């Protein structure tokens, strides 16, 4: 009798455990991991007359963990943690946001948290989904290495444009502190006079917006066009404002599973007030300043496992029209099994011009390997 009771109890316990385990697995968020490793050499570390490629360096580029789940039938949350390097670099919250997808007036979508802002086309895409290995020069200089990735709130609305054209308007209010720019004169990333300078305790919000239009142009071809704007304070002490405007396009032609062609480009226009010292009465001399940059790239998938592409970059500096950089890259992608493992090879040439200095050209060869585990969702179009 006792034995049978024990069996019943044990059965109940086992059944209970399995129900609990099932419930746990059902309600657990999706977890994905993407790791990128790089083997790289360049010839820019020595004086021009001593040019030689450096000994290739093996680096752990980034380890990204994506945790994604629905919160309820109306909202979902996405968290991306990232760690660059294999040493003691900190784990950073790359993105952490909730999106309210349904049930709001006017079919609004609201996003709250820390996220890559919809400014241009490439800014919202994580580097593993790029066709190339390096960020376009214009985006490096104007948006910084991390892009526009800030705390904020975003609202988007679909604009009625018929049954074929998809039009979406997104507007963001951002904390405005973490938008860094690369100032070539300071030789630091995000270390120039930019919004990353948070020594001022005053809060200056930044505002961003994007209008995108998606048009299927043929049975196998689609075109996306976008216009974006961003404005904020870049010098909190002098309260100097900057404004970026950006236009972007992406065309993709995919006639079958083994062939596709992507053409994409963005042009960014910068306008800002810059302090040029003080006059004899001690008043700040302000100067209005404009500069710009753009990139264009194409990527062709010509069979199941290989892609090949090229990119052209040209940009000025956020603070000077004389600080220029231009370059080009060619890249090959090899996806031997699926997109869960990829090898990408890139050759890049960048020429940088500074006032009063000789133009410097740097060649870089990079080989990247990356793998992904788990159900990380594909980036839409």
């Amino acid at each position: 009798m006792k034995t049978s009771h024990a069996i019943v109890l044990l059965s109940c316990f086992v059944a209970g455990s399995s129900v609990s385990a099932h419930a746990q697995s059902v309600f657990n968020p999706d977890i994905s991991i993407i790791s990128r490793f790089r083997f790289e050499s360049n010839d820019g570390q020595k004086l021009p007359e001593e040019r030689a490629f450096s000994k290739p360096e093996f680096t752990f580029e980034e380890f990204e963990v994506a945790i994604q789940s629905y919160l309820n039938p109306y909202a979902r949350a996405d968290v991306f943690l990232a760690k660059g390097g294999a040493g003691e670099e900190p784990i950073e919250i790359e993105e952490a946001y909730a999106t309210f997808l349904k049930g709001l007036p006017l079919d609004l979508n609201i996003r709250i948290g820390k996220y890559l802002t919809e400014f241009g086309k490439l800014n919202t895409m994580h580097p593993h989904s790029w066709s190339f290995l390096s960020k376009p020069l214009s985006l490096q200089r104007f948006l910084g290495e991390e892009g526009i990735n800030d705390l904020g709130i975003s609202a988007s609305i679909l604009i009625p444009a018929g049954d074929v054209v998809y039009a979406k308007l997104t507007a963001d209010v951002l904390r405005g502190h973490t938008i860094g720019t690369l100032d070539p004169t300071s030789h630091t990333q995000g270390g120039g006079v930019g919004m990353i300078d948070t020594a001022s305790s005053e809060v200056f919000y930044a505002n961003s917006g994007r209008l995108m239009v998606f048009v299927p142009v043929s049975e196998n071809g689609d075109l996306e066009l976008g216009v974006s704007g961003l404005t904020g304070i870049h010098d909190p002490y002098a309260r100097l404002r900057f404004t970026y405007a950006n236009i972007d396009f992406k065309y993709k032609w995919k006639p079958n599973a083994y062939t596709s062609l992507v053409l994409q480009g963005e042009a960014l226009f910068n306008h800002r007030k810059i302090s040029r010292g003080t006059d004899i009465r001690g008043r700040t001399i302000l100067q209005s300043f404009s500069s710009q940059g753009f990139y264009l790239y194409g990527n062709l998938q010509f069979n199941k496992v290989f892609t090949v592409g090229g990119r052209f970059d040209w940009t000025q500096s956020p603070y000077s029209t004389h600080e220029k950089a231009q370059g080009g890259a060619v890249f090959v992608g090899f996806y031997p099994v699926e997109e869960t493992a990829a090898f990408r090879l890139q050759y890049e040439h960048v020429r940088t011009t500074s006032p009063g200095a000789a133009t410097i050209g740097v060649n870089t060869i990079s080989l990247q390997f990356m793998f992904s585990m788990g159900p990380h969702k594909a980036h839409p179009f």
Partner: protein
Amino acid sequence: MKRIMFLIVLATAYAFAAEPKIKVVTSLSDLAILTKAIGGERLEVEALVRGSQNPHYIEVKPSYMLKLKSANLFVAVGMQLELWAQQIIDGSRNPNLIIIDCSKNVKKLEVPTGKVDAGMGDVHPQGNPHYWLDPENVRVILDEILQHLVKLSPADAEYFRANVAEFTKRLDAKRAEWSALMAPLKGLKLVTYHSSFSYFAERYGLAVVGYVEPKPGIPPSPSHTAELIRLMRSSGVKIVGVEQYFEEKTPQQIANTAGARLVRLCTSVGGREGTDDYFKLIDYNIRAIVSAAKDS
């Protein structure tokens, strides 16, 4: 003036009288054809995936979200075939969208036991989702869609049921014809590129002994190809069936080396010429297999 007023009143009355149609978006063209068979002119039906596309890998396009935005129903195969669909559903911002999973009452094949991971390829944890290629399962699909349509528009219930009855009658006649054609081939061994024809093969007593893919969704490797050729030779396989969206080069090499014949099969309505509806789709596949079996 009176005439203008009359025309305005007439136009307004017409606008109110013409009831908006139920809008249905399906994932596959096969489901669109079956939904149209039930709803006739009282539905507006559109498929996201063309018959020539591989339904496992569909790009998440904003234009698909737009289609779902104004839809009443989204009809899906289910069993995780349309892993891409959730992003499109979310992007549609349509809180009233009803999602129909047609696999609910299907007797599922190849349901994996134990832990499923990527080492098994793109295996579907809930089983093989290509069940619509068994004509017997069409009844289950029709029933699932019918139930939802009746709930959505009870006034049209009789019309929908009559259409289902008519379609089923035609299907029964074709099923008898297809069974008769396939009966002599019972036990026929073949190889396919992907496991798309498991339900079809089970219905007609065919034996799919191997796949060009080493694992679902994994491109063929030289070692697997060599192993497959050995298997085909030793088992006397004379047919290599290739779905419409796969490349032909590797399966053709396999067929040539193993002394077999390559047959282009079709998994979805509109995927190849002459497959404009469900009956023609099954006709096409049966004709292709019967003809290849005769020649080999």
